[in-house]
Each structure stands twice: as C-alpha cells, then as structure tokens.
C-alpha cells in the first residue's frame, strides 16, 4: 500500500476489515503515515470544539414574518400587464372568429321600406327604369334600320 492510499483511508474512516488490516500494517512501518494518523486524530478533537449552537433569539419570529409576507405577496405588475394582454388578444381572436356580433346588416329594415312605399318612391323608381328604356329607344330611332341590321349580323357568331 502506498502512503497516499493509506492517508486517504485514514481520512475517510473505517472500511472493510481487509483494508483496515492493510492500512494498519503500512502505518506500523511508515513514520510519515504514523504522523498523519496522529494528526488526523487531533484534527477530530479540534473539529469537535466547534459545537452546534441554536440560532439567536427572535429567529423564529423573523422567519415566520418573512413566510407570512411570502404567502400574501401580491401578483407582480408585470404579470397584471401580461394577463391584460392575454385577455385583449383572446378578445381580438374571438372577434376575428366571429364569436362576437360584428356583421353589419345592410338590408333595408321593414320600417324603412314602409316609409319608402308611403312616399311613392317605388313608383318613381319604376318610372326611372322606364325612362332609361325610352332613352335607349330614342337612340335606336335615330339609327338607320339597314345599319342596325348590319350591326346585328356582325354580332352574330
């Protein structure tokens, strides 16, 4: 067994019986490792001088006050804006999908039709259509009938 292996074993404490026997045999023959073994035991004594101590008075009170503050912490502003944005986006998506009433009904309402009929506007609309026909007839009246027949022949496939 080498010194580094023996000293590592001495640092780490008890192991299996075979390893312990090998370590003991090496230490018995090695002054350096004997010194290390003694120093390691003294270190354990020194380490035991640092005893556990309770926390200072008021530790529990301070901790539970922090815990209470953690439990009642309000939602950070950044999250509020985030949620507002999410809701707004969801609303826009809903409008786009047509979940909300967004269509504009362009059909004339019944009340408007009744007014139009009362004012005889429908008859005037009919007269306007007829006038268009009359104008076309006057245009046709100025055209030479032979020319008109020639035009009609050109249009036929």
């Amino acid at each position, binding site marked *: 067994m080498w*010194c580094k292996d023996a000293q590592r074993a001495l640092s*780490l404490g008890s192991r299996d019986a075979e390893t312990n026997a090998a370590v003991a045999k090496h230490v018995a023959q090695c002054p350096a490792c004997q010194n290390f073994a003694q120093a390691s035991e003294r270190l354990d004594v020194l380490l035991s001088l640092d005893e556990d101590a309770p926390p200072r008075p008021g530790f529990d009170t301070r901790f539970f006050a922090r815990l209470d503050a953690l439990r009642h912490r309000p939602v950070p502003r950044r999250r509020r804006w985030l949620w507002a944005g999410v809701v707004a986006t969801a609303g826009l998506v809903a409008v786009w999908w047509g979940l909300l009433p967004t269509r504009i009904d362009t059909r004339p309402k019944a009340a408007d039709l009744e007014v139009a009929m009362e004012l005889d506007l429908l008859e005037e609309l009919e007269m306007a259509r007829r006038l268009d026909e009359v104008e076309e007839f006057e245009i046709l009246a100025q055209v030479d009938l032979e020319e008109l027949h020639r035009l009609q022949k050109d249009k036929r496939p």
Partner: protein
Amino acid sequence: MRAATFLSLAGLKNRDLDHGPATDPDASLMMAFRDGDEDAFVTLYHRYRDRIVNYTRRLLGDPNRAEDAAQEVFLKLYRARARYRPVSRFSTYVFRIATNHCINLRSRHDHQRTDRTLDSGDLAHSAATQTAEVENQQLRHALEQALQKLPPKQRAALVLCHYQGLSYREAAQAVGVSESALKSLIHRARATLITQLKPWSEGDATHVV
C-alpha cells in the same frame, strides 16, 4: 398485482417507492405539505432549523449572514413544494438546497469574515480556568478561520459528513458530485486543515501526501 409492477405497466415512475413515507418520515411530511398540509412544513422547520443554521454558519462564517441564509433555505423549500418528489432522503434534499444557496452566496460576494475578538468577560474566572477557556476560544477561532479558507465544496463535504452525519452517498448528492469525488474532497479538506492547524496541534504532520 404488486404496486411496483402496476406502476411500471402504467408507465409511471416508481422512484417514489424508494424514499417514500415508509423509509423516510421527513419525506412523508414533505409530501403532506406538498398536498396542502401547512402544519407539516412547520414540523419540518422545527426539526431542521438548528441543523440548517449551524450548517450555513460553518459554510459562511458570519452568523448574521448564516441565519439569513438558513431562512432563505426554508423559504425556498416552501416555494418549491409543488415540485417535490422523494427521489432521495429529505435530509439530502434540504442540504442540497442549503449547499447550493451558500455556494451561490459565496460566489456573488467576496466574503470577508468578521474577526471576532475574545470576549473580555471570559477573563473574569480563575487563572487556571481562564487559561483553558481562552485557549479553547482561540482554538475555535483558528478552526473557524481555517474552515473558511477551504474551497466551498471541500468545506461543504467535510461539514456534511463530520457535523451533519450524512453518509458519503447522501453528502455527494447534496454537494452535487460523485461519491468518489466527495471522498477526495474530504481527504483534501482534512489534509489542508491538518497543515493549517499544525501550530495548535502537538507533534509534526509535515509528511502529508
């Protein structure tokens, strides 16, 4: 059908069975807390308060910072309750949180440990006891300074195994290294302390390998 077989067939992880309530009562309390039992958290707090306070004190040196760090550890435990899974012993889990927290604190700040002078009240005893007590205080002071000079992981490894009683495997999980790496950390830490505390020890330990 055995529970483990059933869970395997269901595709569920069965690691909960390794460190569940039957083997670790603290894990049982943490799981109860995860499920909404606030009293279980208070019980865990009182069980681990002194251990965590002394652990952070030995890692950070300054009692004020150590107590604040210890409280932060419990607050982290509280915030992370929904994610808790008993894949290791609860003590390993909480010391892992404490180790990471203290190492992060040390890396963020250049910790200047406040030197504590001897309390003059200690000198009011008889000459014999005065000498012994003063010497003991000086020894503790030297030990604390030597511990603070160790690299963070060496210090954590030594403190977890020597003072907190964790096994090498549990301490390795808490520090975040392999078991063999943890043993190396402990060996190097002890060798360093032996050298630094040589003036306080009898004999000569110059042949440290």
